[in-house]
């Protein structure tokens, strides 16, 4: 074989190939003999592919494991304990854990629904303002007065387009 399949759990050549349909979605897993035995795959009644996929992604030995959310201090073992995340930023911090889970959990892995359009526009305006204010300070510090004037003008321009005051509990 030119390209033998490797076991999804360890790197040995896979000899057991499983296909399971959950909620009209096909899931495939390739395992080596040892892992298949260890996971109880040989007993078809007690085996759920979804469990295996989920556990594989939560296994602390996998490279995705470890880490801590900088924003809220949440750790991966906290997630294993609670089944909930600590804050929105956790989804970035634990990307490696979340992504493999989504495939079994949901119909797709990408959002295609409603977008909070106005909130996003407001956010991009605020991000732009923050950057311009930084530019202004920098320019004044290094005595680049032409750049400073340009930044100042842009700031006042952007400020005119700012909609109502946003609130967050920071």
């Amino acid at each position: 074989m030119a390209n033998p399949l490797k076991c999804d759990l360890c790197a040995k050549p896979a000899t057991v190939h499983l296909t399971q349909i959950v909620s009209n979605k096909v899931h495939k897993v390739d395992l080596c003999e040892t892992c298949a035995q260890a996971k109880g795959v040989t007993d078809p009644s007690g085996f759920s592919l979804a469990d295996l996929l989920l556990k594989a992604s939560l296994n602390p030995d996998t490279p995705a494991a470890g880490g801590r959310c900088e924003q809220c201090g949440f750790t991966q073992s906290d997630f294993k304990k609670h089944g909930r995340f600590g804050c929105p930023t956790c989804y970035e911090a634990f990307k490696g854990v979340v992504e493999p889970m989504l495939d079994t959990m949901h119909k797709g892995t990408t959002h295609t629904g409603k977008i909070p359009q106005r909130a996003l526009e407001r956010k991009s305006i605020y991000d732009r303002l923050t950057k311009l204010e930084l530019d202004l300070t920098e320019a004044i510090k290094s005595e680049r007065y032409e750049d400073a004037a340009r930044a100042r003008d842009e700031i006042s321009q952007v400020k005119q387009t700012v909609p109502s005051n946003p609130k967050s509990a920071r």
Partner: protein
Amino acid sequence: MTIASLIDSPSELTDAASSKTAIVLMTRIRLARNLSGTAFPGWAKPAQREEVLRICREAVAATSPMKRSLNITVGELSDLEKQILVERHLISRELSGAKGGAGVVISKDQAFSVMVNEEDHLRIQVLRSGFQLKKAWNAITELDSALEDHLDYAFTPTLGYLTACPTNLGTAMRASAMMHLPALVISNQMEKVVRAVNQLGMVVRGLFGEGSDASGSIFQISNQTTLGESEGEIIKRLHTVLQSIIEHELNAREKLLEADAGKLFDKVGRAFGILQNSHLLSSGEAMNLLSLIRLGIDLAVFPDASRSVIDRLFIEAQPGHLQHAQKGEFDPAQRDLLRAARLRSEFANFAPPNFSFSTNGKN
């Protein structure tokens, strides 16, 4: 608005005029939303929870559907008041058990409720009696967009709305219908239906959600997944599933009538007898008897106009509502006495059953 006046005004569910549909009692949609850069309620420190509560209550109260709403913290509610709100599906059991820094805003007509600091910062909900998924969606997305003007939601283009639990990511929407399925229960087909519905990515639960039993043959059917499909697609899919469940229920009713109408009418007639004469009724038994009367209405044994009475009694037979009506707190045995008395008086004036037309009555 105060909690006392809210409890004493008819809810979307107990509103007599709105009961038109036979099988779908109620449609409900809820959206989970969180503030960006802020710890989720389960991980937030008490001071953060209080801050989120203050910001969200203020923002929710400023929207137009929430004019003259009830805006209250969980700490201000008595145990009985919490129980009544749970029975009306206006707050969840989880919120009613929250320790501190949690609250709810409920619209005057009790069609909208927004829970703050439940599992997510905001749980926005709309209730509509009958089978009205589209209308419910239009109403809730409007309220959601109005809130968006005041609050910065946690959102990413790929994962959608970010929620404490990854099972709610994406649209963060749960759309559900509460269905009355007595014939499927009587003919032992519910298990089969539950399995088929699960295969289609939908979930079946009892009347009060996760872990509750299906007394009264009332079930909640909702979408399981939230990511990878738009709200419209989820609603369309749910609609199709619900339609097919309705057809199965109607078929099951016809089959029961064909096979042994006498047996079915016996159940309905006996239920009527017990409701008119019993002196001890648990809420579970009361629900099952009322369910049979409701089936009788669908089969033209009782007049159509009685359906709204039964839908009201479904709620009023619950422990919280019963104790509120009796103005006191009672132990379960006393409640069974009071419940039976309440139902006896209600059924003393109920139209008597008429089984003569029913053989043609196919709803």
